[in-house]
């Protein structure tokens, strides 16, 4: 236990020194406030939107930007595992090294996300009141879930790719597939499959994509019928109320499985 703790502290110290982390927090704070301010009234007067509409608007931003940042970060820190000769020669398992790296970066990026969205939340609450603040809190929860899942996926890519350049290239490709490719696939499936069978296929497709899982989970938690992407809109109907647990479970699985594969792969690698 003390070995794992020492390893986690080491990785956390390295992650906290990451130059991109403060930018991540500031970027999310500015983007969140901007989204809240963008609502124009019919008369053209700028007003601050409350949490209800801002949360839905921000969900789209979250499911696009957070996976991109997490995949890229995961790819880089995953590929860096192969530089850790000194750590590999210590009495700690390779799987523990991967887990500690993932946890440290989850904590660091998660805190940056919390600070960014939290700061924006304070601004929105002061300007437009705290009504529907629970939706915003749920948005933060969904953002954290998709962050840790795509970070784990990025680490798997990084460990498998071995070099930083290849890992980054693959992770950008994976991001396109998750954010756009699966939606296109869903649209195609809806067009081809008979209406009675489309629901089951869509549910499976949803679970097979952490980004769409997060999107549908957000919609489900917000209890709103606002359209947020073709996949999310369709699945909002398919999944119903109980689907939120299944979606959250899918995101947890999307975290644990890639992490386990990355750990296993790194344990069997020559450095």
């Amino acid at each position: 236990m003390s070995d794992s703790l020492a390893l986690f502290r080491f990785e956390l110290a390295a992650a906290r020194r990451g130059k991109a982390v403060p930018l991540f927090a500031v970027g999310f704070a500015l983007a969140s406030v901007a989204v809240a301010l963008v609502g124009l009234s019919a008369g053209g007067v700028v007003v601050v939107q409350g949490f209800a509409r801002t949360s839905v608007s921000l969900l789209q931003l979250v499911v696009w930007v957070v996976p991109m940042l997490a995949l890229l970060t995961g790819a880089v820190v995953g590929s860096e595992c192969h530089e850790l000769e000194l750590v590999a020669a210590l009495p700690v398992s390779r799987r523990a090294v991967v887990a500690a790296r993932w946890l440290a970066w989850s904590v660091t990026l998660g805190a940056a996300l919390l600070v960014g969205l939290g700061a924006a939340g304070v601004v929105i609450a002061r300007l437009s009141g705290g009504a529907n603040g629970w939706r915003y809190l749920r948005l933060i929860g969904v953002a954290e879930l998709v962050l840790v899942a795509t970070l784990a996926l990025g680490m798997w890519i990084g460990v498998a790719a071995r070099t930083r350049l290849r890992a980054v290239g693959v992770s950008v490709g994976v991001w396109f597939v998750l954010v756009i490719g699966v939606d296109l696939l869903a649209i195609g499936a809806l067009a081809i499959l008979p209406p009675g069978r489309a629901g089951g296929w869509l549910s499976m497709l949803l679970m097979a994509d952490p980004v769409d899982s997060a999107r549908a989970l957000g919609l489900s938690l917000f209890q709103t019928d606002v359209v947020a992407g073709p996949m999310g809109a369709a699945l909002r109907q398919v999944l119903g109320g109980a689907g939120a647990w299944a979606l959250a479970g899918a995101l947890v699985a999307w975290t644990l499985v890639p992490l386990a594969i990355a750990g296993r792969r790194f344990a069997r690698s020559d450095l």
Partner: protein
Amino acid sequence: MIRLEELHKSYGGRMALAPLSLDVAAGEVVAVVGPNGAGKSTTLRALAGIIRPSGGQAWIAGHDIVMQASAARRHLGYLSQRPGVPLSTVVADLLALVAGVRGVLWNEAVEAVTAAGLEDRLGSTLNELSGGQRQRVMLAIATLGPITALLLDEPSISLDTEGSEEVRLTIRRARERGAAVLFASHHLHDVAALADRILVMTLGRVIAQGTLPELAVAAGVPWSGADAADPPIERIYRALLSRGPAASERRLNLVRGDAA
């Protein structure tokens, strides 16, 4: 303390390390010499768990390096040619990690860096250190705690005369503490000054091993007691390498006494 039995490593069809058997006893210093690509680093990296052996077995302090990897590495200090962590790593963070997993108190860990004359660089990243400073930090970290086996891959690399003397002192101290030391080096005078036994490797194979006088006999280089003060190690080394692996195999047997 360090024991290898037919340990070997290949990459695809290329044999990086032919089956190697070796014992390094407690308090013994064994040096590995040879040209680049000889298999010196491969041997040390396999023992340290950096690469997985293709076959054979090895033990550190009685623990199998594959089956009981963590237990084996708990007794192991390892210095690689590369830093082994990102250069953005802060010295104090690295020290805290190694102290934490080896159960060393923080004050003792800082003392080790202080002894290397680098106590004012605890807050620096490895990138901010000169090559020599970085190597001294890594050496202090490799020898931190109650290690019983020490693997050093080119420990004098990037070091000036003073730094090289520090390396020699570190190896002697490790030997006095009863550690088994296996080190690879291109600095033949360090090897002559420190090693109880020497392995000469080329193309992944050991072509000769033994004490310096034994190697001199195998190489056909005259040796007298007076040579101990300033041994002709370079002549011995070149003579062994120039005779090729097949001839060296016979000398290996001679050194071992099998064919005497």
